[in-house]
């Protein structure tokens, strides 16, 4: 069991190292002078451009030899100093991101967990008999093909504008100050429902298809046939099949995290929901390079942590791994 954990940790550390290196590499090896490109887009006066230019070169430490820059970069990360944001000058990047992370998590976590459970459940039901399967499967496939942000737009337009039930921008109405009053909570939830709903629906299709295929595979496995031959009821056979089919779905959750996080960025942009995605959009639109770099790192760390948690969960649930005999099939 320990062997499995060490191997997993080994890959995640390597991945983190790889991601940070890319993050460091890109501005330094991209064609053209990164600072020049940044400053040229900055619409200020000529002198302020010069000031910006010197500030940025110092901030990047471009005058230092490459390997020195690389080490500084790592030190900065561990110290949590991700540089100063240009867009929200002089706020440090770390605090901006720290502010936006809770909003992302409030929408993302419930959406992922609920869509995973509901999607798996529906997938299991649809594998029950042919007629249900042939009608529900196309729907699942259409849902998974919808681009994340378009579903958000549709919901915003339909529920927000045409029926006007829910507000479609921000995390809470401007007149409110965040406090624990009942009134604020209700208002907050009304703003929360649409981004959550769009992220929730768009993922269900993927999980349902995955579970449907896995269940059919398990139902055809020899142990299901043996149970049937021993007069076991349909319910018992399906319960066993579901338990075995859910395992690869757990690893699937870990692998899909990357795409889901990417999807949530787009959804936040649609609803101007002040999560990491929205911050990232502002960073890009304003060429605020440090902010973009910081958000990238946070996403990587978040995804790696989540992956590791899911792996631990998988190890506890799957006896083959826990007893260290079965080869892990991630």
């Amino acid at each position, binding site marked *: 069991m320990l062997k499995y954990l060490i191997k997993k940790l080994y890959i995640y550390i390597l991945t983190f190292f*790889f991601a940070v290196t890319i993050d460091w590499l890109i501005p330094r090896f991209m064609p053209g002078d990164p600072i020049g490109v940044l400053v040229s887009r900055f619409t200020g006066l000529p002198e302020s451009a010069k000031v910006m230019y010197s500030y940025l070169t110092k901030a990047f430490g471009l005058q230092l030899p490459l390997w020195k820059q690389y080490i500084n970069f790592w030190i900065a990360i561990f110290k949590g100093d991700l540089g100063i944001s240009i867009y929200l000058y002089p706020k440090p990047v770390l605090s901006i991101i720290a502010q936006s992370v809770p909003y992302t998590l409030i929408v993302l976590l419930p959406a992922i967990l609920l869509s995973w459970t509901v999607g798996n459940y529906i997938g299991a039901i649809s594998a029950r008999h042919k007629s249900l399967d042939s009608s529900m499967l196309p729907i699942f496939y259409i849902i998974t*093909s919808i681009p994340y942000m378009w579903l958000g737009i549709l919901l915003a337009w339909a529920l927000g504008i045409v029926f006007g039930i829910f507000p479609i921008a921000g995390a809470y109405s401007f007149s409110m100050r965040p406090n624990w009053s009942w009134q604020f909570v209700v208002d907050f939830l009304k703003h929360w429902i649409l981004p959550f709903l769009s992220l929730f629906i768009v993922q269900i299709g993927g999980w349902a298809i995955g579970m449907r295929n896995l269940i059919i595979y398990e139902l055809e496995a020899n142990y299901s046939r043996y149970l049937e031959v021993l007069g076991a009821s349909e319910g018992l056979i399906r319960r066993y099949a579901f338990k075995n089919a859910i395992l690869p779905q757990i690893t699937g959750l870990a692998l899909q995290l*990357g*795409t889901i996080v*990417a999807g949530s960025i787009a959804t936040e942009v649609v609803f101007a929901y002040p999560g990491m995605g929205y911050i990232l959009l502002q960073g*890009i639109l304003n060429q605020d*390079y440090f902010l973009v770099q910081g958000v990238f790192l946070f996403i990587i760390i978040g995804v790696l942590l989540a992956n590791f948690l899911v792996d631990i969960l998988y190890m506890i649930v799957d006896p083959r791994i826990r007893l260290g005999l079965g080869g892990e099939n991630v």
Partner: protein
Amino acid sequence: MKEFIYFAFKNTKFKIGLAILLFFLILAIIGPYVSHYKDPLEYVSMSNLPPSRENWLGTTTFGQDVFTQFVYGLRSTFFIGLFGGGLATIIGLLIGFIAGYKGGLLDDLLMMLTNILIVIPTLALLIIIAAYLPYRGIGIQSVIIGLTAWPWTARAVRAQTLSLRSREFVNLAKITALRPLKIVLEEIAPNMMSYVVMVFILQFAGAILAAVGLDFIGLGPTKGISLGLMLQYSTLWNAIQLGIWWWFIPPGLAITMIVSSLYFLNIGLDEIFNPRLREE
């Protein structure tokens, strides 16, 4: 091959998928010739006009003709799907073949790289790369999507190569003193042709979705138009609040239909190639 055609046209999922795909393909090809206007970004008439005989899909806030933008956008979407998906499939095939056939340390290293790239959210990677490209055309966008989307293919192709490599006819080829390259190309690859086509279809769909994702957060092509950009502009300029549905519904719908038609094609092909499924 004859048998394939016979079963293909008996398979409903395959037919539906193909029909939708062809519809949008034809629309993308003949669209620009049929539309009244040549330049999608040109000011043609009043802004926010609903669909009419003059402007089949109405106009945008800038008075541009939505239908012209839509058909040019379709072209770029197919372009990215083809080249981005194609590049990803080729890289995935190469790495999958080498890792699967050679095995040993090379296999471990390549798989390490693949696992890393799978864990990192590809969109985050694209953001960093795209954010720093001074000039972004569709071509460059397909390249960066292709470079980051291959891990799924590599894993699938490696598994397929491993299973084929353990088959005895590969050993028989080895003891007939055939060179490794000949073995891969003549013994293993032909058996995977059906599999490669299905993997390419999935990559094609993946590339389209990735491109839309990038365009939407402002990292799309700096010149020309794409369905993702249409969605971005419409959201940025409050098309939802103003109820200009004809600006954001068609691009999203087109992407969804194209991608789901690709998925249907994929399941259809899977049933056609997999005799066991055909029995039902």
